């Protein structure tokens, strides 16, 4: 019997193949976009974890010298006192134009480093003598190894698949040669097993600071906000996809009510039917979900390289650009498909299960029953309110997202009522009978299109919001770059000695030489980069201060005060007038706060003299050079020739800005891609809604046609109606998008990155998006309109036929 019922149920899909395709595509799109984002996140997180595990990052306490490198003598003092510490020398360097992190570890004293253990356990372990003695060996991921092999002047390269991208692992003895930092140690890892009876570290090397493992820079924490952003977008796409599913399933159920009534009349219980339908839906969900996984996999593969570049550029987080099909997110994707489909179908299923055996209500009744009355708009208002309350009462990134989610969902729920209101106003003021009919017909169609229009609203608002955010950011960032990159040339010498020589040579020919010197300090808030500046008009005139006390620069230059960046200010709630504890000895009042969009870490600026007191011996290899802009190229070439500097060692302002902008643009590639995809999905939702509405359109259209309107005209009206609805939705989406943009700029960005950006408006973008929306609506309505145009009169006449 069950087989017979299933056959009966499935026969529906055979007759409605387009509906089946729509349902499957809806599930696939929802699952696909969600899975793509999850896959990207999972891959990135796995990369961090792999890197952290392989390189034992953030697992042990460390010793650092706030004043610069640690000498071998100090290392020996600790060792001879019994402390089991492992020396690490690391620095990011440029090899063949590529920025690569070199990590040199003492492979003898620290053979337990997992990356080293992996190598010695490999099938073809290298000869230890090769690794430990000159010239040594470089270990790199396969991709980097290929790149390095093509470079000259490097030690031989060995491949280790477990290493993060853009990282060279090598023995510390090789690293100090490669980085030209002979006898220097960046940090000492305090190994887990220590002998008994150790003297206190402070008694041996008082100048070293112990950094707890927990307070070390954690890529996962750092990039959390980025991934949360992506997840939010994935969820939005998922929701938009579910709108399609909801619409299709609802219609399919409505169309099958007759069949189901018949089946029940034939003695099949409602529960049997509900279970079978659940089974049917689950199968469809798995089918669609599987297709979605494939889609997601390829999508993720296409997007990951840019995400990886962003994460590396923005956070220095090691992410490889290759995606692996991981069972974890694959299963999660299928579960989402299943859960989403059942969620989207639940309403229809419940209604179906409560359907009285003899009810005559048809498809139209089902349509109109959705989204009418006061429940939906009230729910919408409630959701918005909850979002606002959560934001106000809890705060933080997640609350920021709940505000945004509340706004979006609430607005979506309000949309049908709003549109209905607008339409009835138009209807009232229209005298022309055809126009009147169009408005009234539009209103009648509204329930069936509501979900698609909601999806469109969400997509549009997200587009406007994110677009405004990115464009505002770009504008601010460009302006900030202009303020920040004021020197005509940026120069990196090979060492301090050469730096001095270059300074001496340059001094008579240029307006100013601005040394760029910094040291990384361990601060309770995370790593703190302390910069030194010389007194120069360049800073006084251009430095982008967002808050300042009196005589900012005079006080800073006198060594009396410190400037901090916005990230640090917001994170620690430090503002002019507060004190910043730089290290044990130095605490300075804050004179000003400057905007800083280069990275999410904390920064502070003191006078050069102060920097030398706080951290003696900070290297002085980098300079900004102020000179006549026309002469910059010539000077750059002269410098390269005279001091035998590489191209990367002398960079002109324009190139520096271009590099920075390139990183910036990469950051938002994914966002834009997801934006466009979401809009596409919304357009598809409209198409499917129109197609599913098609069967109910004929009884609406046929009488009008019979009364003397041509099919061509009716087809044009179909296009017009779709465009009008989309246009109205777009107009409603605009303020919503702007509120969203404001939330992103003023709440989410502050929480995620630590900077608040001014909001700019881009009406030209809105016009473009508006036209794009109309286009999408027209394309979506094109197929139904074309069908109508080509419809044989016989099909319309059938509506009037007596014998049906």
């Amino acid at each position, binding site marked *: 019997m069950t087989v017979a019922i299933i056959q009966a149920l499935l026969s529906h899909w055979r007759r409605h193949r387009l509906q089946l395709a729509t349902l499957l595509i809806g599930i696939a799109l929802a699952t696909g976009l969600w899975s793509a984002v999850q896959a990207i996140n999972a891959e990135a997180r796995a990369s961090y974890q792999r890197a952290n595990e392989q390189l034992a990052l953030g697992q042990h306490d460390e010793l650092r010298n706030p004043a610069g490198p640690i000498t071998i003598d100090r290392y020996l003092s600790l060792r001879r*006192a019994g402390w089991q510490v492992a020396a690490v020398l690391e620095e990011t360097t440029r090899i063949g134009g590529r920025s690569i992190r070199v990590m040199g570890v003492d492979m*003898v004293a620290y053979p337990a480093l997992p990356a080293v253990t992996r190598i010695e356990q490999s099938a073809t372990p290298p000869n*230890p003598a090769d690794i430990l003695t000159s010239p040594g060996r470089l270990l790199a991921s396969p991709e980097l190894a290929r790149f390095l092999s093509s470079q000259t002047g490097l030690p031989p390269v060995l491949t280790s698949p477990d290493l993060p991208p853009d990282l060279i692992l090598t023995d510390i003895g090789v690293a100090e040669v490669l980085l030209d930092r002979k006898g220097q140690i960046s940090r000492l890892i305090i190994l887990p097993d220590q002998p*008994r009876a150790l003297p206190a570290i402070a008694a041996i090397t008082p100048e070293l600071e112990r950094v707890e493992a927990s307070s070390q820079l954690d890529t996962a924490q750092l990039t959390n906000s980025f991934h949360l952003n992506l997840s939010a977008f994935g969820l939005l796409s998922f929701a938009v996809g579910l709108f399609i599913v909801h619409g299709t399933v609802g219609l399919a159920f409505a169309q099958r009510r007759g069949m189901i009534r018949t089946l029940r009349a034939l003695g099949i219980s409602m529960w049997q039917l509900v279970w079978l339908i659940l089974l049917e839906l689950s199968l469809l969900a798995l089918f669609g979900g599987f297709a979605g996984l494939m889609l997601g996999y390829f999508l993720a593969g296409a997007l990951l390289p840019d995400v990886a570049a962003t994460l590396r550029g923005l956070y220095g987080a090691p992410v490889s650009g290759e995606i692996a099909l991981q069972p974890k997110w694959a299963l999660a994707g299928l579960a989402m498909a299943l859960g989403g489909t059942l969620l989207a179908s639940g309403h229809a299923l419940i209604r179906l299960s409560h359907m009285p055996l003899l009810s005559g209500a048809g498809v139209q009744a089902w349509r109109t029953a959705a989204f009418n009355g006061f429940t939906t708009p009230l729910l919408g208002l409630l959701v918005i309110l909850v979002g606002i309350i959560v934001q106000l009462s809890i705060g933080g990134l997640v609350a920021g997202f709940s505000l945004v989610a509340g706004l979006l969902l609430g607005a979506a729920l309000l949309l049908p009522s709003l549109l209905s209101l607008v339409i009835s106003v138009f209807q009232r003021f229209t005298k022309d009978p055809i126009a009147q009919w169009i408005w009234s017909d539009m209103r009648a169609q509204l329930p069936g299109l509501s979900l698609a229009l909601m999806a469109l609203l969400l997509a549009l608002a997200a587009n406007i919001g994110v677009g405004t955010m990115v464009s505002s950011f770009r504008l601010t960032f460009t302006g900030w770059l202009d303020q920040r990159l004021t020197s005509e040339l940026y120069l990196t010498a090979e060492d301090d000695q050469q730096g001095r020589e270059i300074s001496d040579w340059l001094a008579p020919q240029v307006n100013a030489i601005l040394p760029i010197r910094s040291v990384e300090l361990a601060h309770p808030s995370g790593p703190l980069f302390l910069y030194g500046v010389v007194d120069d008009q360049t800073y006084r005139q251009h430095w982008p201060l967002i808050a300042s006390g009196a005589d900012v620069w005079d006080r800073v230059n006198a060594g009396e005060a410190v400037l901090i960046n916005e990230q640090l200010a917001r994170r620690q709630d430090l503002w002019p007038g507060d004190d910043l504890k730089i290290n044990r000895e130095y605490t300075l009042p804050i004179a000003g706060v400057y905007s800083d969009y280069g990275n999410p870490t904390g920064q502070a600026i003191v006078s050069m003299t102060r920097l030398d007191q706080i951290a003696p011996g900070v290297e002085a290899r980098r300079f900004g050079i102020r000179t006549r802009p026309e002469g910059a190229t010539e000077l750059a070439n002269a410098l390269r020739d005279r001091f035998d500097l590489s191209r990367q060692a002398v960079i002109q302002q324009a190139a520096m800005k271009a590099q920075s902008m390139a990183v910036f643009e990469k950051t938002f590639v994914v966002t834009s891609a997801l934006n466009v995809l979401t809009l596409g999905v919304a357009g598809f939702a409209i198409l499917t809604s129109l197609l599913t509405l098609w069967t109910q359109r004929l009884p609406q259209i046929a009488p009008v046609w019979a009364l003397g309107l041509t099919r061509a005209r009716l087809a044009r009206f179909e296009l017009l109606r779709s465009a009008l609805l989309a246009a109205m939705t777009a107009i409603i989406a605009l303020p919503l998008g702007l509120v969203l943009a404001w939330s992103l700029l003023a709440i989410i960005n502050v929480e995620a990155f630590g900077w608040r950006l001014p909001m700019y408006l881009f009406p030209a973008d809105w016009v473009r998006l508006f036209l794009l929306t109309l286009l999408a609506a027209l394309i979506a309505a094109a197929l139904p309109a074309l069908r109508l145009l080509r419809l044989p009169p016989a099909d319309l006449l059938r509506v009037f036929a007596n014998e049906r």
Partner: protein
Amino acid sequence: MNVKPWLLILALLLPPFAQAQGYAGLGGSAEGFDIPQPGYQFEFPKDHGPHPSFRIEWWYLTANLTGEDGRPYGIQWTLFRSALKPQETEGWQSPQLWMGHAAVTTPDHHYFAERLSRGGIGQAGVTAKPFEAWIDEWHMRGPDINKLSLSANGGNFGYDLDLNAQGPLVFHGDQGYSVKSGDGQASYYYSQPFFAVEGTLHLPDQDIAVTGQGWLDREWSSQPLAADQSGWDWFSLSFNDGNKLMAFRLRGDRSDFTAATLISADGETTALPDGSITFSPLETSTVAGRTIPTRWRVTLPDRNLDVEVSALTPEAWMATRFEYWEGPVTISGSHAGRGYLEMTGY
């Protein structure tokens, strides 16, 4: 045997096991390293220091001690040197690698620790005058080799001991040229077996004052074993009558190779050729999943010596990067006394 290849650097320090012959040409040529020659004239204190042109070298001290509680204890303090290349250079890229092993054995427990370092930066090394051998905070040092202070620490144990030589250095084999196989592989090998030891053991629950006897072995070579030799059993025995015996058996696939040195109470030595001494395991114990002979019969028929050598505890397994058994033994039979036993390759 699952010897991790990386450990090979350190494995070079010990006589390699059977499959080691494939590695780094151990069974073959010495790759630019010096080879021990018969008739070598030792020069002190210089020869107490390192010999970078030889592949391997060690400063190996064991001591049988008695605590204030009357219980027997044993300690080990070893510094191994292994050279990747026959030279020393300054800095991290020094080809000289160092490994320290320290252990305390009680009648029911065995504590051990290990340290690794490279030469060139001063984290480990040996100087001849004043004498100091060290790795990290572990050290064996004094004005000269006859008067030393010895210290080492692990996570939960340690010791601080004073050593005073009560007799002369003794030379094994042919005046310090110690042959290790029928094929002629050899090492330079001398000992100071006459240390009086006094000091403190730090055990997890208490410190114990101890006294006893110590035995220092000095050995260096570049090619210590024949290709087919898979491990060894090495005995340093101090009899109650003041005589001492150093004896070892190198276990080969084709045949075993034995050698021994009888040392009289005043330091006179008699080298005994291959085959003059017999070793037969009487009892094995399962330690760390391996079957280890922990009671031996050692006979020297020519000298009327027939003794049973029993481990103080079978637990004296050194689960270091390169594993072996090293622990104190008691002697009974024709002679009584105490000593140390080292077994590798099980």
